């Protein structure tokens, strides 16, 4: 029977599990995000570097095809073409820039409209906790950011693994693991920054600018501290540096000697994530209590 001919009846069917209901939110938001022109342009642009890297991987595994690198070719060039931790560190560094830009565009529209339209009571009046709400919003960003980080990264790694010998995979499997862990940590950090900015600034453009400013301002501040106090630990305040230090450790790449190490960077990142989460939870209340 047509819907308009049928009267309203209470629903008496089975209900979905309460732990997975929040997954409905990303399903509704992704199509809207992918309908935004800037998001699509960024997604397309972000594919160029992985394609270049894929080409590089192909060439490195078919060096014999290059006339100048025939049998007994130059060892220096062979070494330059080798796929190692440094290659993946550079790959991740470039892709992370696209991830920040995407987060700056997609992130502000996630929480700010709910706060502006007073929609939080609608979510929290249902069996949905603040944690689930944050989880749902992070899932949105996780899906989008994965398209420019994890997905192309794994594509390049799997391509290399399939083109190279089994011996390479046995010796370098930690590169894939390190890349996944590194990108996961990065996505969580960028998502939390974007969501926090979205929760505190109602204007999308300003919130987006704030996401970018978070990285640039802290990078500048860390340099100022290093220069003025003649220390190196100021770099820890730079989330870009801290995440890169962790990536280097995960990928087995040597970091600068006198700079803060991976564990210090990781600890600072964890503290930063905890602070962002606390700030976000403080803002996400269904009702404002005025003292």
């Amino acid at each position, binding site marked *: 029977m047509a819907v308009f001919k049928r009267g309203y009846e209470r*629903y008496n*069917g089975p209900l*979905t599990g309460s732990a997975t*209901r929040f997954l409905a939110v990303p399903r509704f938001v992704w199509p809207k995000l992918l309908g935004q022109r800037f998001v699509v342009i960024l997604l397309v642009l972000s594919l160029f570097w992985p394609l270049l890297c894929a080409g590089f991987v192909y060439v490195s595994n078919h060096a014999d095809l290059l006339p100048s690198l025939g049998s007994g070719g130059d060892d220096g060039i062979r070494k330059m073409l080798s796929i190692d931790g440094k290659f993946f560190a550079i790959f991740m560094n470039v892709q992370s820039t696209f991830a920040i830009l995407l987060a700056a565009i997609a992130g502000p529209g996630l929480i700010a409209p709910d706060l502006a339209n007073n929609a939080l009571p609608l979510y929290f009046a249902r*069996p949905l906790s603040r944690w689930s709400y944050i989880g749902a919003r992070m899932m949105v960003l996780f899906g989008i950011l994965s398209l420019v980080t994890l997905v192309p990264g794994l594509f390049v790694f799997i391509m290399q693994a399939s083109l190279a010998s089994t011996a390479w995979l046995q010796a370098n499997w930690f590169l894939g693991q390190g890349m996944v862990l590194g990108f996961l940590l990065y996505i969580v950090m960028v998502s939390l920054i974007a969501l926090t900015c979205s929760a505190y600034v109602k204007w999308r453009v300003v919130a987006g600018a704030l996401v970018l400013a978070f990285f640039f301002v802290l990078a500048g501040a860390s340099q100022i501290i290093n220069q003025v106090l003649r220390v190196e630990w100021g770099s820890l305040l730079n989330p870009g540096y801290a995440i890169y230090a962790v990536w280097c450790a995960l990928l087995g790449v040597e970091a600068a000697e006198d700079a803060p190490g991976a564990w210090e960077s990781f600890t600072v990142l964890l503290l930063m994530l905890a602070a962002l989460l606390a700030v976000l939870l403080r803002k996400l209340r269904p009702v404002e209590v005025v003292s």
Partner: protein
Amino acid sequence: MNPVIAVDNLRVRLGKREILKGISCRLGASGVGKAIGLLGPNGAGKSTLIQTLLGFHKPSAGSAQILGFDCHRQSLDMPENDSLIADMTAVAFLRLMGELSGLPAAAALEKAHETLFHVGLGEARYRNVGTYSLGMKQMAKLAQAIIHGPELVILDEPTNGLDPAARQRMLVLIKEMKEQHGMNVLLCSHLLHDVEQVCDEVVILKDGQIVHQCDLAAERQANKRFVQLQVSGDDRNLGAALREIGAEGVSESPGTWRIVLPVEIEVNALWRITARENLRITKLAYRRDTLEEIFLKAVGHLQPSPQPEVVHGRI
């Protein structure tokens, strides 16, 4: 019958202020549609009580349960203020709310259409909610609250900003919710006429405490036999004459009587008695407390047993 809302010595403190000061009540009946009016002057704690029932505030003492569960497991709220996801079509908005309430995706889509037609937004269901008029937004809020057919629906000022026709439509929908669909409705409103029209029970809050709780249907029944009578002439024997027919009467002032008629005695009997006593009736009216009077008495703006003239003067 199990109550839908069970509140036991509920105390809620916001900052340094205690808003709810030990509220205890049992409201609604599980499985039976009932509408409960929540009344009170501004600052009485109505919204805090609703928000506590929804789990937005933690009680500092006591407990609040809905259908035996702590707070918001089976209820759905229609907030007083604008509370919508503006950049979604009404169908998508309701579908999302349905899925978050536990409906499977296909059922949520079906129910979204069905509910929007039910509240009168069928033709506008593919428009963004942000473009709706105030009345349409109120209906959309009601629709999102009932899409999955909850046992309890909490409506906070549902007729706010509605024109008379839309207001009437909203009240009809609320009546249908309880009478045809067996939902319990907690209705918070300042419009006593609306509450009187749809509610079966009324709870009146003042300064964070329940000052009055009554069953409106029973109250109406009980008050139906009160008659106010004004006569001219010598009415000294009227009291005895009333007792003869089994009625009780009290002279409030010379010529003014308040009479309680037993169910089996018709008003015509009063005409006969007054004629027999050579009295001329100048006024005869049923005298029952309106909700407005119940409310004003409860919040202390009206004396409990007022003289009619004084009542009119104060109102």
